[in-house]
């Protein structure tokens, strides 16, 4: 509700805990002996599932509870305790604390792609290739597989993904005679048409959001972050970052984006009544629109993300994440087996049914998935657009090993440019500086450029 308060609290906490954890991460810490194997073959996994034991899973995705139930039915000797300890940041905080404390972490945790490097490089996650999960590569899309492979180790299995697309209100576009924009220039022109005609209507909302910014830079071809062991490079003024900021400046400086925070009730109201005409967002959005903006039913459509050059196809991932096995786990075999069941076997369908967007090729290519006609989207086969987007995600993206912290200070830097309607490039430069100095404090060798 009170996002500023939440942010302040999170900041306090991020400094306190993430700092401690990231600092500790550079001290080579050995994983405790524990009571279980740190590696195993498919047979070992199968055998472990026939022995009475239990695992704890921290996840907030609504499908996980159903997946756990199905898993327990298939393997009656296993008990899976699913705990929702908080969405996103809240959970990471607890995870960091439990890791720092040396006990209390779950066996399996849901971790978004952007946060994964922080936990992976902190040596708190098990390397899944030791369970032979390397073989699962072909099952997943290239971009999600890339997100869970860091430093030649496999730290998670992708659970869902968020290839970006443009969601738009057909009624609003029709009303103003706007053709579906294919380039960002057309998008900006549409923004002006809409807002000039109705001062309360906007092309989209954007009060500054780290996840959105990084995704947009990703699409523009930017590679602001590079990580090689403890050497970290940050350059939020590389070609791609500038390309995005220069385009988006036209919307922000001109006041053509609504000052409405995402996930607020005003946001859903705007999505319901059309005063927010488009969303550039991950493919997991349809379920949220159906559930929370039911009045927009029949009005929304989906189109590919606008491009910098006409005829381009570049997209990016927005959100999404995987599940990892914690080093602290004393039941890694069962934890790994559950991971596989959840993300590479029966679990994927349950996840899709609950509104998750798949990261598995088989699901993305299935006729049932592609042929699905969404009533909410006027009968459009929306998954065709999304599956196309998943194939066209720009390769080679990398997040910082302290991205959770970096995102928490976004509001003080880029967020200020948004608030002042000033040059986003300056905000990005500030963000770079602040992130770099934090990285240095944590013992990384940070180079800017």
């Amino acid at each position, binding site marked *: 509700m009170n996002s500023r308060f939440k942010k302040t609290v999170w900041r306090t906490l991020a400094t306190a805990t993430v700092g401690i954890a990231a600092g500790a991460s550079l001290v080579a810490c050995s994983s405790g002996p524990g009571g279980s194997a740190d590696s195993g073959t498919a047979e070992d996994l199968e055998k472990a599932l026939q022995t009475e034991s239990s695992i704890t899973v921290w996840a907030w995705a609504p499908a996980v509870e159903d997946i756990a139930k199905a898993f327990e039915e298939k393997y009656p000797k296993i008990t899976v305790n699913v705990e929702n300890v908080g969405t996103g940041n809240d959970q990471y905080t607890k995870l960091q604390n439990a890791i720092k404390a040396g006990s209390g972490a779950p066996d399996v945790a849901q971790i978004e792609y952007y946060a994964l490097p922080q936990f992976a490089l902190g040596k708190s996650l098990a390397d899944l290739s030791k369970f032979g999960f390397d073989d699962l590569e072909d099952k997943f899309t290239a971009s999600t597989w890339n997100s869970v492979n860091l430093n030649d180790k496999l730290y998670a299995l992708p659970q869902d993904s968020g290839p970006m697309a443009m969601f738009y209100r057909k009624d609003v576009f029709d009303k103003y005679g706007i053709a579906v924009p294919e380039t960002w220039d057309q998008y900006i022109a549409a923004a002006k048409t809409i807002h000039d005609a109705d001062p309360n209507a906007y092309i989209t909302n954007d009060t500054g959001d780290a996840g959105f910014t990084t995704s947009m830079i990703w699409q523009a071809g930017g590679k602001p972050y590079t990580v090689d062991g403890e050497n970290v490079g940050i350059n939020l003024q590389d070609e791609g970052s500038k390309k995005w900021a220069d385009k988006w400046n036209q919307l922000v400086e001109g006041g053509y984006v609504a000052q409405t925070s995402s996930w607020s009730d005003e946001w859903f109201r705007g999505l319901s009544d059309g005063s927010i005409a488009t969303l550039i967002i991950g493919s997991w959005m349809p379920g949220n629109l159906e559930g929370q903006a039911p009045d927009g039913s029949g009005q929304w459509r989906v189109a590919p993300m606008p491009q910098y050059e006409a005829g381009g196809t570049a997209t990016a991932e927005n959100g999404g994440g995987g599940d990892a096995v914690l080093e602290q786990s004393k039941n890694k075999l069962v934890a790994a087996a559950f991971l596989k069941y959840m993300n590479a076997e029966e679990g994927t369908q349950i996840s899709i049914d609950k*509104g998750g967007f798949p990261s598995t090729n088989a699901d993305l290519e299935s006729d049932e998935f592609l042929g699905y006609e969404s009533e909410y989207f006027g009968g459009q086969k929306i998954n065709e657009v999304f599956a196309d987007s998943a194939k066209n995600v720009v390769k080679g993206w990398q997040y910082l090993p302290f991205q959770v912290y970096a995102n928490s200070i976004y509001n003080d830097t880029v967020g200020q440019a948004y608030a002042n309607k000033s040059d986003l490039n300056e905000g990005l430069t500030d963000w770079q500086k602040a992130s770099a100095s934090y990285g240095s404090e944590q013992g990384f060798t940070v180079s800017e450029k």
Partner: protein
Amino acid sequence: MTSVQQGAAPAPSNQPTDKIDATTGRVRPARRSSTGQRRPRFAKPQEGGFRKKRSVWLTVVMAVMLVYALLPLFWLFVNSTKTQDVLFNSFGLWFSGDFSLFANIGETLAYHDGEFIRWFGNTVLYVVVGAGGATFLATLAGYGLAKYDFPGKKGVFAVVLGAVAVPGTALAVPTFLMFSQLGLTNTPWAIILPSLISPFGLYLIWTYAIDSVPTELLEAARMDGAGEFRTFFTISLKLLSPGLITVLLFTMVATWNNYFLPLIMLSESTWYPLTVGLNQWNNQASTAGGEAIYNLVITGSFLTIIPIVIAFLFMQRYWQSGLAAGSVKQ
């Protein structure tokens, strides 16, 4: 205002008597005018001091403050009567659609196997044991520090003052690490034990006890053969009760609203208090495929504040009498 009028009426007798000054409430000796007549000081109430003046400005400021304080409560009530659909499609500060308060309450209590009721019970437990214990400990310690002399008293004073200055938020993570070593995380103790410490409450009782418990009274009790504990429980505690109620109110509100500590300490929803639980409900909409239950979050919040409002209204009486009792000391 009646007292002012009574004071304003000229006394029927010429005999000067002590009277109560309406402005300060203090007893003042009557003064004799040169003619020997008592001067009717309050014959014209309009002139009778600033107490009678009505400041338009103050009234306006007060009204604004009142609106500022009550508007969120009003919003909460109005919106807890709406369904999820209506919530997003109606004006926030007025009723709309069917009056579904009771349906919402029913749903809130039943959602997810009635976890709201469980959280409510947890919160009550934390408040009763945590805030009650904090008040008791603060009273004991504050009284002891105020009424007994012992070496190191100044040191304790400095530590307590320092502790008041440290926000609980800053201590949450170190406390977590410590509790984790003790194996206390994920248990009610993780919330109750830190709640038992209220440096501010201690300080308040301390300063309050210095004035409100006359040392002579304690000496008299000792002379009569009462032990220190008996003196405390039969005499001092009664004298301290207004201060005690104040501390109880503060600690109750603090524990009832405690969010950060349980957020860090607990990873099992069975021990969540309402604050953390409601936030989890609120957040579940902002994830792929999450079910939006904002109407239940709002109704839940509304139900959450009711007990604390009742507690305030109920205890306010004691609190006010406490403040007044302090002000007429001679």
